[in-house]
């Protein structure tokens, strides 16, 4: 079907995304604080917290992003429990002093300064492109504007993000819990909310399966290769 376009597609899409980014940069002005373009794949923009609500109406009416894909949040705090598969020290087993728990906040594409970020994705059917929009949650209020006036589908997504991350969407008419029981305490998707099953039973680590004798040669070659990153 799309045989003819397939070979040229990456170049065409890339141009379209650059043009889109230019248009957005020109229209949003100071409200746009960061962007990231992955040629032929995807586009990320970051707007200031105050302009989060108005970005929705801009994207929907001016840029024809009609399809609402999803809205959620990210907690950039590194896990305070140090119990990642790669870590050598296990905090929950009483090694709190030895553990070097990282405390610097991470940030993804298009940057970010705060612990919590809101992100949403919309899609345009006319250009067949999607765009991911991010904004920082202000540290003091953890509140940004709502999107439901422009995308009514954001209603449940905002309720979910609010209960899972303990954030607030100003102007949402009914920001009650969507999934959790009403007496539930805490915000499960925050990084400092412990996953109890992992607390009571430690992670056994990567179990290295012993290689079959005849393929041992190639297996050792593989595992030595795996210690380094294939892409770097």
């Amino acid at each position, binding site marked *: *079907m*799309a*045989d003819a376009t*397939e070979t040229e597609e990456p170049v065409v899409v890339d141009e379209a995304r650059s043009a889109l980014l230019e248009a957005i940069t020109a229209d949003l002005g100071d409200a746009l604080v960061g962007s990231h373009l992955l040629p032929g*794949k*995807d586009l*990320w923009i970051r707007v200031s917290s105050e302009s989060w609500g108005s970005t929705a109406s801009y994207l*929907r009416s001016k840029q024809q992003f*009609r*399809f*609402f*894909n*999803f809205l*959620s949040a*990210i907690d950039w705090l590194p*896990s305070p429990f140090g*119990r*990642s*598969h*790669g870590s050598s020290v296990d905090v929950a087993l009483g090694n709190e002093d030895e553990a070097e728990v990282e405390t610097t906040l*991470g940030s*993804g594409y298009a940057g970010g300064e705060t612990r919590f970020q809101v992100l949403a*994705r919309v899609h345009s*059917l006319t250009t*067949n492109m*999607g765009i*991911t929009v991010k904004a920082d949650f202000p540290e003091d209020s953890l509140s940004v504007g709502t999107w439901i006036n*422009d*995308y*009514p*589908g954001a*209603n*449940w*997504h905002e309720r979910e993000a609010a209960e*899972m991350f303990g954030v607030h969407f100003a102007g949402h008419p009914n920001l009650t819990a969507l*999934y*959790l*029981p*009403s*007496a*539930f*305490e*805490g915000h*499960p*998707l925050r990084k400092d*909310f*412990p*996953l*109890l099953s*992992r607390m009571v039973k430690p*992670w056994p680590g*990567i179990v290295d399966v012993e290689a079959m004798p005849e393929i041992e040669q190639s*297996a050792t070659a*593989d*595992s030595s290769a*795996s210690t380094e*990153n*294939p*892409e*770097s």
Partner: protein
Amino acid sequence: MTAISDRRQLAYIAAQAADARVNIELEAEGMTLNIGPQHPATHGTLRIVARLDGEQVVEANPIMGYMHRGYEKLAEVRTYPQVTALINRIDWLGSFANEVPFILASEQLMGIEAPERAQHIRTILFEMARIANVTLFLGDMGVQLGAVTPIFYAFRDREHILNQIESATGGRFHPNFDRIGGLKDDLPAGWIDETKRSLKEIRKFCDQMEDLIIGNEIFQARTRNIGVIPADIALSYGMSGANLRASGVDWDLRRDSPVGLAYDKVDWKVWTHTDGDSFARYWVRLQETRESCKIVEQLLDTIPSGPIMAKVPRIIKVPAGEAFIETENPLGVMGYYVVSQGGLEPFRVKIRSASFSNMSISPWLLKGAYVPDVITILASLYFILGDIDR
């Protein structure tokens, strides 16, 4: 933290009882009707509290969370290959389709691509998951209207497809077969001919459903002009899949962005309907099942030779970055937003599931509907609770 002390436990129980009391409170204007959580129309445990005025729904409020399993949190403490075992359980009728977008997103982050043969077989299994999923809907919609026979035909004929999925992957419902960089195994001998035979059964089933259900006068009377969704509203609510195409939007990710799948190598058609009512949603799904059979048949004839796995390190470490990949799943657009910080496990996985957005239109859609139509409208939206609650 969850409630631990006795007092907290009591407060928790009291709050749950308060939640449950909603359905017995009668109001001055009209009554409140509780539908669910156990109801045959809901494919799981969904509860809808509807305020009625006579026979008409004034306000409908779905209450979810009975099946919330917290996959987004669980994925953060599992390695990338382990996550697929979880996400198989999101839409449990078309499990293989759940794995594909996550694997594709991980592959994009790692900068690898599955060999052509693996992409081909992925597409075949993806479409077979769709057939297995939608076949059940085609029969189940009859049950919601009082026609009990079609569902038995659906279960009977879905079995052909499930057997083929089982013989290729080892799992009837949860294949867990997709791997970063390719597939777990190659196809077994004789599988292609056997699959073609089972597709013939599905085509026969589609013809049967066209006679039994689409041509049925009662079915038409109960679904035509019921639950009409205009295209623009459907889009702003994030509806997708056959629900969206039944509202006249000609958008199918299989055709419009076939990332890592072989849809662009076959000849097929995207079906749309302009009515946007319950009937249109059934009709579009029936045509799409036929179209899926067509896709699989063509792909079975053209499987390229070659390896089924790309060169992937044994311990998968994904470089830092973010990726969002969405595919056209049986229930609609499903996507995974994967954030990696260079570790063995994802830093954050946001699961964009189709039914969640498809159902979010229900308060708007059910307003003004008659009580018996609530059931047909919900059935025609076709959601799976695992796909809403995740």
